[in-house]
């Protein structure tokens, strides 16, 4: 063998550290933990706080396409898009739902910061979207009048 034991150990430690660092970054940016803190809350304010803490929300750059009147609250079509770059995730909430936090989508690779989904709304309420881009949080909302509530 033509490498010293010390060099070998140094090398192992170094690659070990890289692996740990890599994993931590991966978990944080690509797969943040399932947001139990937000899901468990039954009021909008605490649910939002469970999702984003006390981070300031900028009211711009987020477009929500939702019906003004939804006949069936059990399935309300919602599209969210943004002109922001480097979008990490988009999350949806319904401010009058028994569990206000609904979903969060993470964007990797060449995906576009856009999502189309169908959500439950218990009653007439605001659909709120939160977008995380470049470490900042942006928000937009859309009022939906529900004529028959979804069983949420």
């Amino acid at each position, binding site marked *: 063998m033509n490498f010293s034991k010390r060099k070998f150990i140094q090398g192992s430690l170094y690659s070990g550290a890289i692996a740990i660092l890599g994993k931590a970054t991966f978990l944080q940016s690509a797969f943040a933990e399932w947001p139990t803190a937000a899901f468990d809350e039954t009021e909008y304010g605490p649910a939002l706080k469970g999702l984003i803490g006390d981070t300031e929300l900028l009211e711009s750059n987020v477009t929500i396409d939702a019906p003004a009147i939804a006949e069936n609250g059990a399935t309300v079509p919602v599209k969210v898009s943004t002109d922001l770059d480097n979008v990490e995730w988009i999350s949806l909430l319904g401010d009058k739902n028994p569990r*206000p936090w609904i979903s*969060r989508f993470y964007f990797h690779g060449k995906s*576009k910061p856009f999502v189309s989904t169908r959500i439950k709304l218990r009653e007439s309420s605001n659909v709120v979207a939160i977008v995380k881009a470049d470490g900042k949080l942006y928000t937009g909302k859309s009022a939906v009048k529900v004529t028959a509530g979804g069983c949420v």
Partner: protein
Amino acid sequence: MADEMKIRAKLSGSTTTVKAIMYHPMESGSRKDKETGELIPAHFIKEVKAELNGEIIISGDWGTGVSKNPYWSFEFDGAKAGDTVKITWTDNLGETGVGEAVIK
């Protein structure tokens, strides 16, 4: 299983649009059985992920506010016709479902 998901992926210009419907009850856990009056246990998809040729492109965390038989559509660049899109879901009971589509 063929009944778990309907998925299609269509290329237009440089953008691929995927549309999928996953067959799942999405029970919130707060609905009562009309006959017995007992609560129907929560049963909902918690995590979804979409892969292009095995590389993750979009993933999601879902709660009980996503509608029954969830519809999900998303878009991405960088694919060509013939590439494969795969969606996998996992629910709160640990069950999983998979759907695959070849981009047309």
